[in-house]
């Protein structure tokens, strides 16, 4: 009884915050690890941009904005998040349509929405809104989801994912689909259903293939056979493998990476920064980074496990696992395990919008944990 009332008690909205920092919700473990990752990232970035302080300063400013987003998100109680979820989701899909229409007019890739004072990438919004929407949908329903409910969630996930894939931005489309898919998995579909869908998914691959843009197909070909494009992405993969491999166990030392500093390595400050770190800090450095990332994921899963309602659980779990997907996809593509899909290394790669998105996501985790109602017993 007490647990049931706990879960549904609207009283929780006004309930006293359990953890706090002068009344504010701040998840200290989360925040500390975030600082550690970003700090480590800045050290690597400093080397990657050849000590150009302007770029470094901009990255620091982005982190500042990200921190602000973290704090704001952390103060919003989960049930408010839940109420706003459909609005946020449909706003995001609407903006994607606007961008698609504008792109149609302007010809070519269109990912940005120019609001006059700031340029904004609607697909970033969907990285959060899609798992939120799935969690919202299952919140008042019984778990595990029924088949029709799965269909609805499939629609919730695939609509924005296809719109983003058509922009064309395959990397983000996959991440959005992964975020939604993980929410659905966490909602508890049975292993049998998973297998059925997996088979169906494989069946749709040819359809997906036909929908892909030529350059996206080229990336897949290049991944399977780097020699076909030695002047383009194939070259990138080879050079980044050389950078990683030559780092060895302890690395060549900070600012000593010859692959990076002699400009053999492409996109050093963004998608390929993992290789810079590998070259200069070696396997030990990478393991440290990986441990920090895993700590973030672990903390997130812990928050999910101790969350008290379906929405919070699903959202916390999905955000944590999606974060891991970011890390795995980036590290995988840079080390030649996965095709190059243009996914930055979270919190480390230079770049503004994804930093803010990720920090907002962690803010939501902090909120979910900080707004738990105290157990009566």
């Amino acid at each position, binding site marked *: 009884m007490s*647990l*049931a009332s706990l*879960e*549904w008690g609207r009283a929780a909205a006004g309930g006293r915050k359990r953890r706090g920092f002068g009344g504010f919700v701040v998840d200290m473990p989360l925040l500390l690890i975030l600082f550690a990752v970003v700090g480590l990232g800045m050290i690597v970035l400093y080397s990657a941009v050849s000590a150009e302080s302007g770029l470094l300063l901009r990255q620091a400013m982005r982190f500042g904005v990200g921190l602000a987003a973290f704090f704001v998100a952390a103060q919003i109680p989960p049930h408010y998040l839940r109420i706003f979820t459909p609005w946020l989701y449909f706003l995001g899909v609407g903006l994607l349509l606007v961008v698609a229409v504008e792109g149609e007019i302007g010809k070519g890739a269109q990912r940005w929405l120019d609001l006059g004072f700031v340029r904004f990438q609607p697909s970033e919004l969907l990285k959060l809104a899609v798992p939120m929407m799935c969690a919202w949908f299952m*919140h*008042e*329903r*019984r*778990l*595990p989801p029924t088949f029709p409910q799965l269909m609805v969630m499939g629609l919730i996930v695939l609509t924005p994912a296809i719109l983003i894939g058509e922009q064309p931005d395959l990397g983000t489309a996959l991440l959005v689909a992964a975020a939604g898919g*993980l929410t659905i*998995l*966490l909602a*508890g579909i049975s292993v049998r259903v998973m297998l059925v869908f997996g088979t169906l998914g494989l069946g749709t691959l040819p359809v997906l293939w036909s929908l892909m843009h030529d350059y996206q197909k080229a990336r897949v070909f290049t991944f399977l056979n*780097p*020699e076909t*494009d*030695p*002047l*383009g992405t194939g*070259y990138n993969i*080879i050079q980044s*493998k*050389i*950078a*990683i*491999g*030559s*780092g*060895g*166990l302890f690395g060549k030392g900070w600012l000593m990476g*010859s*692959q990076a500093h*002699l400009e*053999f390595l492409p996109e050093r400050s963004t998608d390929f920064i993992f290789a810079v770190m*590998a*070259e200069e800090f*070696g*396997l030990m450095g*990478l*393991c440290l980074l*990986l441990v920090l990332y*895993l700590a973030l*994921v*672990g903390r997130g*899963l812990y928050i*999910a*496990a101790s969350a008290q309602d*379906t929405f919070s*659980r*699903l959202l916390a*779990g999905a955000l944590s*696992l999606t974060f*891991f997907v970011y890390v*795995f996809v980036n*590290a*995988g593509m840079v*080390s*030649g*395990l996965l095709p190059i899909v243009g996914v930055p290394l979270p919190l480390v790669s230079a770049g503004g919008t994804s930093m803010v998105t990720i920090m907002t996501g962690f803010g939501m985790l902090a909120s979910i944990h900080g707004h738990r109602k105290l157990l009566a017993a």
Partner: protein
Amino acid sequence: MVAGSSRQFKDPWQEQRLFLSRVIAAGIIVVLLSGVLVTRLVQLQIWNYERFSELSQGNRYRIDPVPPTRGIIYDRNMVVIAENRPNWELVAVGEQINNLDRTLRSLEDLGLVDPSEHDTLRNLVRSHRGFERVKLSNLSEEQAATFAVRRHLFSGVDIQEALARYYPFGEMSAFTVGYVGSISETDLQRIDRSNYAGTSHIGKTGIERAYEDRLHGQVGYRQLVVNAQGRVLENADMGNDDFQSKAPLPGENLVLSIDMKLQIAAHEALGDVRGAVVAIDPRSGDVLAIASTPSFDPNRFAAGMSRRDFVALNTDPDKPLFNRALAGTYPPGSTVKPFIALTALQHESVTPDHEIYCPGEWRLPGQTHRYREGRGGVHGRVDLHHAIVRSCDVYFYQLAVAMGIEYLSGGLTAFGFGAPTGLDIAGEQSGIVPSPEWKKKNFSRREDQVWFPGETVITGIGQGYMLVTPLQLASAGATLAARGTRFKPRLLIGSASGATGETTYLEPVALPTIDDHSAEDWQLVSDAMVGVTSEQGGTARSNMIGAEYSVAGKTGTAQVIGIAQDQKYREEDIDERQRDHGLFVAFAPADAPRIALGIVVENGGGGSRAAAPVARKVLDAFFASQDYTAYVAGEP
């Protein structure tokens, strides 16, 4: 409990257990995937460390693009019109130069480097790694010699050979072959960048642009071994599983329909007037010549010209960059009469022996405006044949009114007027075939959209709104010559393999035939056009006296300014640029045509005086022979 549908019942305990099990499963998968990642890193960084370390710290790969050789362009007789010539380049190697500023200044004093680019070049050299060769300028043979004798004074400066595009016929080929120029930001949007790695130039206009894909070829690459500073040590085949070298695939050699002999004759026949000549083979649509004067030397674009030179060329009042043959639109004047005659015969608004009396002017029934004979004079009694031979306007005023504008414009459209011909290079204008519908579409004010009967009258003699390009005129002339069989005008007729020298030719592209005129009608119009150049009173008779071939032709005069009702056109009163344009449409030999011509001479003062003489020279060259190799464009 407030949540859930009535038939479902939430069980928080069971749900939490389910969720927990999922989280634990997810955690295990995360750990497993991390394991995969670490294993991969161990594989790269521990097991293969030796190999990658060697690649990285000792020698390493660098992949250098090897640009393909651009295809050669030939005329129909395999005369080269665009080729790649060795060219001298001045290069600097930064690390071997003691004082870059002083070195550059000395080179400027010798006239080898442009002083206005001093800062640009200095920054260019400094932004490259010390051992890299940086191009400073193109050198002529003479400049190369100047430098060669002083080479010992310039440590770190050298000359090297490179291939550059060269157009041996210079301005003669500017409007067909076009030219290449440095790749611009806009060009980058439409090309595959990796295929252009190592390529500096790209087709900008004409054939060079239209067939860029085929002319360019496929980039190759070679693997270089460079040391830790990136200096190239030697060409080497590493013999491992990474990259091998690949030879570039040269661009295709293209064969054009152009006959350079005729092209030169056309260009020289125009001389220093502003005008255009287009010659087409009516049997295939092959464009034998496209001349537009004044022209420009495309080699200046290929070599790169200064901004000032370009602006001078671009703002020249004679518009040398303007391709009059494709983009110049002119009122056709009386050259339109053969086409109108055919349309009228088909409409049966006239019979071949229908005679009228031409008093030198004509009024629409019930109106006071007098439509005069353009060239003045009184033709007296004329039938259709003589109306064409002597270019009687009054006869055609009446034909146009009898047919009505709708039928008339339909007949002209069938010959390809009013739409691009579809030539395989860009830049064609559509021209205009006016009709009430056209007027409605192209005028915004309601009172301007009304079609007036008087506009039908003047369309009958090719004045008013009607506009044609010289290319359209030649193409329509070819259709007359072939009696309704139509081909799409084309420049590309084949490609030549670089290896075997074998040429493969393309089939002509047929267009819908005009088959609604009787053989007698075609014959009548052809005979009348032969009369123009041979009979007493024919408007081009004097121009064709002594020709050894029979010519079917029609002169035309296009007014540039309107002449008031009571005034006469007096050339001496009129500014040169407002004088009449002269036009001529022709085909020859009349009984088995092998060439059709469309000619415009701007402000030349009438078809028989300005355009027909040009036709005579071009046709003489076509039927005789002329040594084209004697002509060589200004030395590069």
